[in-house]
């Protein structure tokens, strides 16, 4: 909260426009590929599967020509913590079972192949998920993603789920993030101008909580008021979401998209077959 410029925090995770083959894919392909790899990382519990998924992610990152410093920066800051957590998992014997083959025994400490694999899977999974998420964020614009989600979710409308409503909620949320950040900036400055600088004061947790109130109550009130006005504006223009509406930008799947989707599908099936 330095210097009242909250909006500077919103610059992390921007698109890196390198015009690679991955960037040129349809956003739906990237989304579905992301979901496929996510499923493998989240449900995979054997070390070879998760490591293969990690290698694939790194390969796609290289294809996307993402500068190494971006990819490494986030991961590097967390490596010490991940290692500590892996050690804790070994010590607390998480993932152990009676059938596991013991490697080391030292007093109460017991390391088996199972616990070692579990700790390794956790390590690889965290790295993989971070790189995968970075891959999606660095190659896709947010509007492209929302567009892709809306197009993908359109068939759900016939089943009765309010897919357009949900996509619109996402779009509104993203559109209002800079607005609300500026409102929060303005509130901090206004409170400070009245002598209530929210960055200083007594420490002690109760005081810190109380200091946050003069920012939060007006911020929520402003947010709620904006929501009401937005709803009125939408209603007065008879905007009822996207049902039956055409789109200005049409997404088209090309041959590279279908090829990539087939590759991802093969990989997911293979990963599940392996275990």
């Amino acid at each position, binding site marked *: 909260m330095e210097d009242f410029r909250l909006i500077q925090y919103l610059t992390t995770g921007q698109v890196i426009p390198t015009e690679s083959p991955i960037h040129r894919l349809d956003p739906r392909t990237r989304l579905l590929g992301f979901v496929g790899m996510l499923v493998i990382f989240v449900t995979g519990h054997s070390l070879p599967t998760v490591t293969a998924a990690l290698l694939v992610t790194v390969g796609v990152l290289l294809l996307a020509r993402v500068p190494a410093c971006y990819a490494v920066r986030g991961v590097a800051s967390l490596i010490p913590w991940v290692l500590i957590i892996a050690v804790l998992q070994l010590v607390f014997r998480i993932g152990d079972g009676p059938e596991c083959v013991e490697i080391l025994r030292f007093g109460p400490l017991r390391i088996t192949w199972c616990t070692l694999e579990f700790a390794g899977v*956790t390590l690889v999974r965290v790295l993989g*998920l971070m790189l995968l998420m970075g891959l999606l964020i660095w190659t896709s614009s947010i509007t492209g993603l929302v567009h892709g989600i809306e197009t993908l979710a359109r068939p759900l409308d016939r089943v009765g*789920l309010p897919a357009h*409503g949900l996509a619109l909620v*996402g779009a*509104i949320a993203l559109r209002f993030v800079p607005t609300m950040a500026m409102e929060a900036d303005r509130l901090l400055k206004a409170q400070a101008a009245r002598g209530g600088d929210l960055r200083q004061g007594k420490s002690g947790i109760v005081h810190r909580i109380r200091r946050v109130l003069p920012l939060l109550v007006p911020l929520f009130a402003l*947010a*709620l008021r904006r*929501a009401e006005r937005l709803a009125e504006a939408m209603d007065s223009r008879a905007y009822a979401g996207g049902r039956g509406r055409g789109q200005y930008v049409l997404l088209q799947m090309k041959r590279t998209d279908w090829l990539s989707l087939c590759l991802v599908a093969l990989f997911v099936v293979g990963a599940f077959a392996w275990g």
Partner: protein
Amino acid sequence: MKLNTRNIALAGVLSAVSIILAVTRVGYIPFFAGISVTIMHLPVIIGAIVGGPVVGTIISLIFGVSSLILASVSPLGPSDVFFTDPWVSVIPRLFIGVIAWAVYRSARASGRGWVIGLGVLLSGLVILLSYNLVVGQASLGPLIGVVVGALGLAGVGGIIWRAFRAHPEELALISAAVAATLANTVLVLGALVMRGYVPGAMALAIGVANSPLEMAAAAIITVAVVSAWYQISLRPGGSTV
């Protein structure tokens, strides 16, 4: 399930506030030793109270996904390691909206919302504890901790009820905030234990250290925000200040 425009706008703007609270770290009130009292689930609670369970669930979905993205792309601490897993960051959060709305409605109807809140706590802790026992790390310590915690909460609930007996609206808001915050803590810690990231005893310790202040902060802020909002909207033309 239809979403009218008011609910869409409400969910969208409150999700934006939730994202802001996470990104600018205003939502993290530092406590000690790296643990913080977090208030980023407050838009979920307020959205559920003002807009209903669907709005609350949508906001909690966006809240969960944004915490997932932030943990992966700009991690800031050890807890961000775990939040890269959607089982920990997204799935547990989906229930907060419904719980907040349900407790608020039943508390307004009957004035006994804190009983429900307590029920949520107890069920969550029972689930946690039984999982721990089943997996084979049974010990007396966590059991005593659970019982003491439940009794403490019952006592605090009783004090709050006596103090706010004459103000059913505030009581309903406090109950909803407390129940939803507790559900957030219990469900996220439970997911951490079930995924094997954190041993059960440590999760219990974190929960016990963090929860009371988080519930208090959530209750204070929720009551302040919702009562200010309802007073403002009752007077057409905005407040006179």
